[in-house]
């Protein structure tokens, strides 16, 4: 696939969609390239506009402080200290903007490639039976347009007539064409994709400018970004901390005057900037953008940041059995012969009856016969010497398939059908065949009886055990989810017996058998009534109400437009297993926020120990305060400057962490808290002591200072 048509996967770092099997199944962060910092610099300066800064109260205070010290520095141009503080305060603001710009930059690159794909198309609109050429932008909801091989589909819609293969690589990055046909769950087409063959009539379902590709561009660009509820709450906390510290610093001046040590505005501003939670204030929006970005890298589009946040809170996952928990199709697992028949005989007959069976089940029988008994698949040529050869295909009426060859008739099929078939021909079905059938059913498998009628008369040879094969590693995955406090519910159309067997094998907590869309909806409402947040995937139109009801509804891109409209995320890979990763990304986002908030607050302790003794340690009557200078910083100016520099540099140092997210491993809340508290709480307490001391050492080497 060429990069031009694979915008989503060509995020600057070339992120890859991770399946549950990929990369140990853990959410890893996106890569971080230091060159992005340089590239985003112009944007960082553009964001100095106070109207933009005001959105982040903490950094806005820093900007005001920078302006203030700049004025003061101009008033006293000979004071190197004032200039140094001014420069570093401005750098603090620029670094904060840089973090946001870098995070946004990754989305912008993706948006640009998407825009290229969204060329202005000419639509062939049907009016009555006539056809007219109109620009794609003039299409209205309900218009019918014709698309033939080579045409770009002009807008989102549903196929109402015909079937075609469509290249959707512009959206999904997947180059293999997909089939789109009228009716059913595969009728949705997306504007900007290309019809490769045949002719379809599409009924437009979205207004121009609001199409999927438009929304994608807005999303990855962050234009539609709104602060999420948790972000708002955190901002309130940060703003109140800022007020507390503003208060502490403003009131300090009268105290200082009383102590006979009036402070300059520059020193007070420096103290204020060091105390307010600039680290998290600077990185907060970058963390949010990066969280959405991590989803995009996995080819998931979240329609809102709120949905990503909700994903972290999910406590119930509804997982479709087919495709998510199991490989999707039942497969032959063993041949069980009845008394009087050998296993090899059974395998041979089973294989023979399945040669023309192109269903996955049929093919799996051929494969098993080959693997287990070395029976090579015979092609029709090999059977060509047979006098008569008729394959009997499976029909819903007969519920069996098979082959008639040289007077021998082989049939395989549902137990009831085969029993009836043998009975009609005057044969008897042995009791052990029935027992085997019951045993396999009870174990959740699907029994297929194999019967033969030849010279020895009609009789049952044995049973093929068809099994749903649970994907590798699913049990471990569900164990992890359980430890994270997430309940998994398997949704299946199977009967309760089959469902239970698979549920037990996969290790899910619960299952919903013979599930109808109404059952699904009822289950979601029941869970939500208990205060739980529910996540689910879906693709069909009948999934749409449930997708809308779920707190996190992930629609498959292959699904109908109704489903995509109802969900709050779209998985472009249409891989339902990704739901688990989405939850982990949501959690990772919240943890990153909490960790950096803790780090930011813990940092302040060291800054006080640097600045307070520097302010008052030499004042008569207050010399005792010099004992607080436990870092033994070299001079007053150097101590304050070191704290300010550390405060600015730590932002840059933490940009990669904010963008990648903190390392996340599923574990219980308790262990997670202990780990993160140790790392970011205790680390945040100690790190600045070391950092400030080192910076002070460097500064004291500069001649004329310290």
């Amino acid at each position, binding site marked *: 696939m060429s990069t031009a048509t694979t915008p989503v996967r060509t995020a600057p770092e070339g992120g890859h969609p991770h399946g549950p099997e990929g990369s140990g199944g853990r959410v890893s962060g996106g890569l971080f390239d230091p060159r992005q910092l340089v590239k985003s610099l112009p944007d960082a300066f553009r964001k100095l506009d106070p109207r933009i800064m005001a959105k982040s109260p903490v950094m806005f205070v820093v900007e005001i402080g920078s302006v203030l010290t700049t004025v003061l520095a101009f008033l006293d141009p000979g004071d190197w200290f004032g200039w140094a503080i001014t420069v570093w305060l401005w750098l603090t603001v620029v670094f904060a903007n840089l973090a946001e710009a870098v995070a946004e930059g990754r989305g912008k690159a993706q948006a640009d490639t998407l825009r290229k794909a969204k060329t202005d198309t000419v639509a062939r609109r049907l009016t009555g039976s006539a056809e007219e050429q109109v620009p794609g932008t003039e299409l209205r909801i309900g218009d019918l347009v014709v698309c033939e091989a080579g045409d770009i589909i002009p807008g989102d819609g549903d196929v109402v007539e015909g079937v075609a293969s469509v290249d959707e690589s512009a959206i999904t990055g997947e180059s293999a064409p997909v089939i789109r046909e009228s009716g059913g769950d595969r009728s949705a087409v997306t504007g900007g994709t290309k019809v490769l063959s045949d002719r379809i009539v599409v009924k437009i379902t979205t207004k121009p400018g609001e199409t999927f590709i438009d929304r994608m561009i807005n999303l990855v660009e962050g234009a539609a970004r709104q602060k999420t*509820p*948790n972000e*708002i*709450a*955190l901002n*309130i*906390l940060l*703003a*109140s901390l800022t*007020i*507390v*510290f503003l*208060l*502490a610093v403003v*009131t*300090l*001046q*009268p*105290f*200082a*005057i*009383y*102590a006979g040590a009036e402070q300059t505005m520059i020193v007070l501003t420096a103290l204020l900037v060091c105390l307010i939670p600039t680290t998290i204030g600077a990185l907060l929006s970058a963390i949010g953008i990066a969280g959405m970005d991590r989803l995009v890298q996995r080819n998931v589009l979240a329609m809102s940041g709120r949905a990503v*946040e909700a994903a*972290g*809170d999910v*406590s119930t996952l509804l997982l479709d059995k087919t495709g998510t928990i199991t490989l999707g199709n039942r497969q032959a697992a063993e041949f069980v012969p009845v008394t009087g028949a050998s296993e090899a005989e059974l395998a041979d007959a089973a294989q023979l009856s399945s040669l023309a069976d192109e269903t996955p089940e049929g093919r799996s029988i051929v494969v098993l016969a080959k693997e287990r008994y070395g029976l090579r698949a015979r092609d029709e040529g090999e059977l060509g010497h047979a006098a008569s050869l008729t394959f009997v295909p499976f029909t819903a009426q007969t519920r069996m398939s098979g082959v008639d060859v040289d007077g021998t008739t082989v049939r395989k099929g549902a137990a009831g059908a085969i029993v009836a078939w043998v009975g009609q021909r005057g044969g008897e079905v042995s009791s052990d065949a029935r027992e085997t059938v019951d045993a396999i059913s009870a174990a959740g498998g699907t029994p297929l009886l194999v019967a033969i009628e030849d010279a020895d008369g009609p009789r049952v040879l044995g049973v093929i055990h068809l099994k749903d094969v649970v994907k590798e590693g699913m049990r471990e995955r569900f164990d992890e989810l*359980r430890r*994270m*406090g*997430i309940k998994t519910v398997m949704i299946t159309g199977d009967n309760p017996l089959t469902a239970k067997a698979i549920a037990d094998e996969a290790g899910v907590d619960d299952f919903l058998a013979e599930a109808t869309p109404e059952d699904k909806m009822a289950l979601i409402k029941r869970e939500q009534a208990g*205060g739980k947040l529910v996540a689910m995937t879906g693709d069909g139109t009948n999934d749409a109400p449930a997708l809308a009801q779920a707190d996190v509804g992930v629609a498959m891109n292959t699904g109908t437009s109704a489903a995509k409209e109802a969900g709050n995320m779209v998985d472009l890979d249409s891989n339902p297993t990704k739901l688990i990763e989405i939850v982990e990304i949501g*959690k*990772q986002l*919240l*943890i990153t*926020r*909490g*960790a950096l*908030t803790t780090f930011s*607050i813990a940092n*302040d*302790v060291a800054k*006080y120990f640097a600045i*307070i003794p520097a302010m*008052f340690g030499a004042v008569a*009557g*207050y*010399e*005792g*305060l010099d004992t*607080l200078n436990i870092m033994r910083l070299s001079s007053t100016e150097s101590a304050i400057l070191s704290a300010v520099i550390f405060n600015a540099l730590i932002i840059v140092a933490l940009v990669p962490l904010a963008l990648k997210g903190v390392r*996340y491993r599923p574990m219980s*809340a*308790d262990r*997670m*808290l*202990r780990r993160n*508290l140790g790392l970011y*709480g205790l680390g945040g307490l100690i790190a600045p002591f070391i950092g400030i001391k080192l910076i002070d050492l460097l500064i004291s080497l500069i001649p004329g200072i310290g």
Partner: protein
Amino acid sequence: MSPELAGVLQLAALIGALALVYRPLGDYMAAVYSSEKHLRPEKWIYRCIGANPSTQMRWPAYLRGVLAFSLMGVLFLYLLQRVQGSLPLSLGFTPISPHQAFNTAASFVANTNWQSYSGEQSMGHVVQTAGLAVQNFVSAAVGMAVAIALVRGFARSRTGELGNFWADLVRGTVRILLPLSVVGALVLVACGAIQNFAGIHEVGQLTGGSRQMNGGAVASQEVIKELGTNGGGFFNANSAHPFENPSGFTNLFEIFLILVIPFALTRTFGKLVGNIRQGYAILAAMGLIWLGFTALMMWTEFHHGGAALQEAGGAMEGKEQRFGVGASAIFATSTTLTSTGAVDSFHSSFTGFGGGLTMLGMMLGEIAPGGVGSGLYGMLSMAIIAVFIAGLMVGRTPEYLGKKIGSREIKLAACYILITPTLVLGFTALSMALSTPPDSMLNTAGNSVNHSGAHGFSEVLYAFTSGANNNGSAFAGLNANTQWYNTTIGLAMLLGRFLPMVFVLALAGSLAEQKPVPETAGTLRTEKPLFAGLLVGAILIITGLTYFPALALGPMAEGLS
């Protein structure tokens, strides 16, 4: 026995006694506040005040009750002091000046009991018993009612109803404070505290000469002063006065009274939210801070350098020989970590660090264990902040006791924690910046402002810290009976008491409306020691960071010199 050992043994006895009554008292209080029945005397009261105790109130109605009742209390108390001259049993004292009467009325209604007057020299029997002592009961009951309303906010869901303020107020007074006070007063009287309505006696003194002493209903007021974490002494010397606190035993008993309800309320909390271990976690956080402060206080008071101090067995200046360093240290930390403010020794004379500890104790917001009721709601507000940060670190949007901590809750909790620092630092800064208020510092008159140094600054800082946090103890030395201090401290007390209540009740209302979030393995376990430790850390760091510069220029500069 060495004084150190005596102190430790007294501490152990105190903890033992508190542990003994923790469960029964906590369970009893839970039963009182969730009972459906009204006692006969309670029904009389409801009829008198025209309240229907069975209606449920949403938070604005509950708050209106709190504010209306307290406003009436302030007005009544103010009038009573202003007309003292015409009251019976006034011992010949004249009416109190307007600004002092305002200050005292605000002080007692706000459960602070800051006293810019000397009881024995200005307040007659009627003002003391019908005015001040009554407020000692009801201001405490108001605090408990608000705390219970917040607990109901956590316990209830999908309703905005927080109970009935009048029922909570009356029950807290009639069923909890009154019976405990009667028992407590009998114990104190039996141990030598006085209880009479005697007039003024001329008493000869050992050093020659004589002085006037009056009697009064001292024991009864003493017991509610401690039990309701009020702290306003009958006499100026407060619990250092032998009529109030005659012996080492009564001293320990009074500390017990100070701590018993605030600690036991955590049990009540656990009971009412249906998870006793949640109550234990809050208790653990409170206990850890209280014990830590007490240990530090004992250490600094016993081991302060200086030959004279060591000879006396520790820093004995300002402490009673009857109690010694150990018991005085326990009393000092207990009275400042609750909103009591009663003193059996003079905090101003403590070592620099010791004085700093009493201040820091109040600055924590008086939540370990804090005032009756106010300690619990203060601690729960801090818990919401701690949960918010820690909750994020486990990868969920934060929740506490099954309730989501969203932007509304964090806004209210943040407003709560902003109030006292604003009042303390704001008023202190104003006092330091203006020209006359610093003159109130000890030994400043006629000298340069800087004369009193760090200690003088501590006096002012202590006064506003004590007022805004509703403690009421004073760093003796500051002459607070000036128009400036009476007015500003009065305002600090009222705002520091009732603004937080506004936010706490709004918070309770918001929590009560939510539907509960079920607990899973992914939920932050707030009943575990790890969380209690985190809570303590958050409290210490947030308070420490807020007041660090102020503390540095006051007690720290003094202590480190």
